[in-house]
């Protein structure tokens, strides 16, 4: 077993649709994509965000872009114009995801 930091093998961008935040995670290579596909599960992402994401996290695989797309429900404290958070639009969910570490 070894630890892989997501920031070392991928980049990410996130954005909002009302109270839903999506985080696109783009692997640096095809091999990195396989690693992410195997180890970066929606359960792990939900756990990493803890109380920030109240609803479910759905993962879409996007092989053509070597990317995974995580759609996080009830994730923005009610949505952009209801949220008390500084990151009311979830633009920084990407940064927090990049901080994840995977046991591979």
């Amino acid at each position, binding site marked *: 077993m070894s630890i892989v930091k997501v920031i070392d093998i991928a980049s990410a961008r996130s954005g909002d649709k009302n109270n839903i935040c999506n985080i696109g995670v*783009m692997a640096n290579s095809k091999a990195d994509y396989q690693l992410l596909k195997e180890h970066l599960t929606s359960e792990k992402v939900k756990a990493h965000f803890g109380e920030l994401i109240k609803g479910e996290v759905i993962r879409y695989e996007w092989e*053509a872009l070597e990317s995974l797309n995580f759609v996080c429900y009830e994730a923005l404290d009610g949505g952009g114009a209801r949220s*008390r958070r500084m990151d009311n639009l979830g633009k920084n969910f990407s940064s927090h995801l990049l901080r994840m570490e995977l046991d591979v």
Partner: protein
Amino acid sequence: MSSDKVVRVAGTQGFYGDSPMGAMAIVMNKAADYLMHDSLAELTLSILQKDKMRDPSLGYPRDIELHAKILFPATIKSGIKVVTDSGGLNPAAAAEKVKSILQAQGISGAKIAIITGDNKIDELKDLKEKGLLANMDSGEAFSFDKMPTHANVYIGAQGVKDALDQGADIILAGRVADPCLMLGILAHEFNWTIEGDNLSQKQLDLLASGIVAGHVLECGGQASGGNAYSEWPMDYSIHDLGYPIAHVSADGSTVFTKLDNQGGKMSRNTVREQLVYEIHDPANYLTPDVTVDLTQIKLEEIGPNKVKLTNVKGKPKPEKLKMTIGQMEGYISEQFFFFSWPYAWDKIKKFEEGVKGIWKRLPYPVKDFEFQYIGVDGIHRSAAPRPSDEELNNRNELGLRIVIRHEDPKTSQAAFSSIICLGLNGPPGVNAMPGWGKPNRVMLGLWPTLIPRELVHPVTKIIEV
């Protein structure tokens, strides 16, 4: 129409308030045939509704006035057309304003088109009586208990095509779905059929290709090196970031590029990053005109600052259109305080104790509040790793953001003026930030619903300058 025809569209506005400099550079270099501007985020519509309630001649993004002064004279002179949703909630008033600003500069003969029919705020009662407006996510029935601030249907590209077919130089649309601004341009140039029940797979693929090109452009500089983790540490300049330009061919294939003499970068990574942005299921990206399947796309770098996108697939459009209703739910207010070394963290905790004690005695109860620690968990809240108390006490400085949600606008004044006394009565070494913290930001709920297409009638009208 020759098959090697290429249409050049630049995405030069990503939001209400974006810089016009990227657009100016592209116009000066004559590097595009069209500028596509998107200024309507969900929240923007509620801001515009507030403007319109204050003054019925407003209700459109005001930067259209700056564009009419400095950008449109140049686009008209160069024959470059501008397609924007900056008509907002009041395209007719936006067009009158643009017309008067152009006339004041001695410009005549230009055609401004407006596209309306998306705004349903005055029809909500009727629609509810028809049994419509249920929340498309929860199924809940709509209620007027919370005041509706706006109600706009995402409409498709047909109006944009019609306006261009009629010779429009500037299109000021209402809530045309962002990427449909692009699709309308391409449908006009390549004579693609948008509406029709029996479109062939090839026709659907073309529509889908246009949508994806529009999706890449709709956030402006975010496609050409802005906001890009994948290009960090960004070995290019950002002060003069070159906005994205799409070169679209008749078969729907698109090469994304940017001006070589501007900053930013166009790479497979920058386009990939924008493609995943605000998309849910990549196999079913829903738009008013076509459902897009992005899972088979081919994205390749074909040269410096040149990225080619092909093989976008289309499926029939969704049966109904999406409408979003804004609902007034109260206000959000905030204030900031900063605490220096020593004991920065303990001082914050003492300050909080004072705030809570004072608020208990207020005639306007503050019930919904949060204390957020800038430099610790301001952005990622409880998900951020928490340093030890000792480490926090040793920081040079820490910030406290107090944010409250409230129904009565008077609550914010009471809440924040009542705690200013802690500047003298509270812990030592506190900096209040006069002028920071905006009181009474409108707290807005967004109610998504589906509406039958036959109840939506987009109208395109031409106004001559």
